[in-house]
């Protein structure tokens, strides 16, 4: 492990080496199994403070990071900057982060609407920055928890066929998953209306298709993405109804899945827009497992960053 990548921040999956992904997943598995045994307190982050700085509304990611920090015995504060006064008053991202840093936290978990915000802060701050989603760029903890979910249900990622269906253009989850799944040896197909597939996405080593049938016919894993009403301008799909008809995972299309295929969704779901309620709650769905695994993987991220930080201090 002497030459292993040192984790200073977690900014995205693209820059992670396979060995680092493996390490985070293995650590996540360990936490998951301990949590399942009923253990609720760990000491990895005792006397540490984790700040969640969220510039976008978020319930699950923020509470998942908060839960992870608390399970590890860290102190945790939430700074919701989506409508907070200092931000409304014009304070810049760097100023807000520096103010928080002046209170001596040990980790910063950042959610921001602009791609590259975590990169910017990682250059300005002394503490590890964890990207909890930046614009359309990356959402690394989501891809890691998805990978943990796939491994615990399918055994291994290598050789699997994964279809990602929906608004790829405006999805940080899609990008992080494409990088991770490619690195771990899966074959990825992205599917959606042409207006929601980003130009040049094929050059990220994925297969592109506009047909859901084609995307899912031999898929082992189907990831359904949320149609992000709040992100896209309205000229990209004619209506939700047409989208559901052509690209939604409804009961009919779900029937074409091969046996043992699993269905994932990063949430929050629009039932009846990208996925039917029956499919979302059906036996193939691992959507709630994803949420459970989220806490374990975020514990793994915090624990590994803490470990490498201490390694740097020696």
């Amino acid at each position, binding site marked *: 492990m002497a030459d292993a990548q040192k984790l200073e921040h977690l900014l995205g999956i693209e820059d992670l080496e396979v060995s680092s992904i493996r390490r985070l997943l293995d650590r996540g598995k360990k936490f998951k199994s301990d949590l399942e045994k009923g253990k609720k307190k760990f000491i990895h982050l005792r006397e540490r403070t984790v700040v969640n700085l969220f510039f976008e509304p978020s319930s699950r990611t923020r509470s998942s990071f908060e839960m992870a920090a608390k399970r590890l015995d860290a102190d945790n504060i939430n700074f919701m900057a989506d409508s907070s006064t200092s931000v409304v008053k014009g304070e810049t*991202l760097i100023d807000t982060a520096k103010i928080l840093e002046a209170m001596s936290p040990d980790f910063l978990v950042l959610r921001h609407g602009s791609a590259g915000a975590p990169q910017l802060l990682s250059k300005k701050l002394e503490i590890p920055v964890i990207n909890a989603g930046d614009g359309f760029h990356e959402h690394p903890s989501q891809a890691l928890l998805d990978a943990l979910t796939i491994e615990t249900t399918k055994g291994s990622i290598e050789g699997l066929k994964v279809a990602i269906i929906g608004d790829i253009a405006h999805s940080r989850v899609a990008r992080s998953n494409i990088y991770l799944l490619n690195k771990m040896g899966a074959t990825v197909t992205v599917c959606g209306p042409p207006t929601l597939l980003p130009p040049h996405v094929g050059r990220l080593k994925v297969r592109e298709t506009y047909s859901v049938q084609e995307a899912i016919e031999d898929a082992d894993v189907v990831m359904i993405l949320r149609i992000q009403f709040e992100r896209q301008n309205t000229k990209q799909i004619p209506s939700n109804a047409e989208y559901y008809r052509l690209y939604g995972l409804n009961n009919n299309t779900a029937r074409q899945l091969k046996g043992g295929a699993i269905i994932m969704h990063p949430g929050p779901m629009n039932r009846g827009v990208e996925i039917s309620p029956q499919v979302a709650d059906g036996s193939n769905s691992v959507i709630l497992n994803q949420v459970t695994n989220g806490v374990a993987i975020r514990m793994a991220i915090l624990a590994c960053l803490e470990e490498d930080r201490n390694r740097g201090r020696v």
Partner: protein
Amino acid sequence: MKRVVQGTSSSKLLKGGHLIDPLHGRNEPSDLLLEDGKVFAVAKPGELDTKASRLKAEKIDIKGAYIAPGFIDLNARMGEPGADPREALNRGAKSAAAGGFTSIACMPSFSEYNDNAFVTDFISRQAHEESCVRVFPIGSLTTKGKGEYLAEIGTMVHTGVVAVGDDSTCIKNSYLMRKAIEYTKAFNVPVFSFPQDPALVGRGVMDEGLNSCRLGLRGIPAAAEEVIVARDITLTQHACGRLHFSSISTKGSLELIRTAKSEGVQITAETNPQYFSLTSDMIRTYDSNFKCFPPLRGEDHVEAITTALGDGTLDAIASMHMPQSPSAKDLVFEDAAAGMIAFETVLPLVLELVRKERISLERMVYLLSTGPAKVIGLHEKGLGSLKVGAPADIVIFDTDKQYKYTSDRVCSSAKNSPFIGKTLQGVVLMTIVGGEIVNKGTGNDES
């Protein structure tokens, strides 16, 4: 036109240099005698010594450096009117002089709109007081640059604007653009078009391509530029008008321009060093110093631009000098202001193309001086060449000297340049405007 430099300057003999004057096909060792702010004589080395002694001319030994007509910028920005803190006029002018520019055409909406003759006159008077280089204002094409109504173009032309255009805003209304091209025909100035369709640009912040896909940033497609280039070529052709394209950045635009020129359409076009020196690959770390508009493009576009500089499709290289304050740049990429300071890095960046043998040194001088002079009619005043009787606007430069471009060196008020900290090759040794030395590089910088 206002004379920037007042009074009669002393006579000077520039000895031992190598003159490049594309308009007259001169590319040879020559001495120049300057008298009364003008070029008095040009001759073979040594031939002017007697004449110079008679005039008691100050002898300046050029020591083998190149002498060329001073550079002329078609795409500059200054903090007047409005005393914009991003670029004080005197500092900006000093920066231009340090880059070898002796004349700069200033865009009309950097701080306050230059959309009427009072503002034009104000800029000219401020420049007269504070600027060490000649300043030629560009007038706003529409009132307040809103793209709704034509500004008083005729009155502004009579007060001194050399071109009209809405700066870095595209005229989205095709009817208005047509009328603008028609109307300006009466005044013998070109319409400056900034070809970036606002609807296709949308909220884009970088080139649409693999990099925008990877970085999760909204892309600006090449089509945003090309549809307007196609439109404005068509409008210019039908109106028999004259139009200049600012800041061409894509391969497709160049193909349209090349074809239109071969058909005799009265268009000219410029690019900026950003678009042949940098690519969108450099944005990988979200460094906002690389944020430009039009955006930095990919290798294929860079290659096409380099070719077009050599084959005559492009007429000029302009700086697109865009000073920004640190607070406008120290933001997430999509919120950061676009543009970079550019006067002082133009020469070394263009010389890079000369070193790669993509353009000749003579072609370089054409693109930086003679070409832009023709675009805005300054050749009629003798600018852009060094024939006898022309204003003594001169740049003297060295092509080999290497130095680190540090922020201490920067003359501009602003420091937003991705080249700071980089090693550059080629430096301006002296800039002369109207026979007076306005900038003197030591030429002794650390290598």
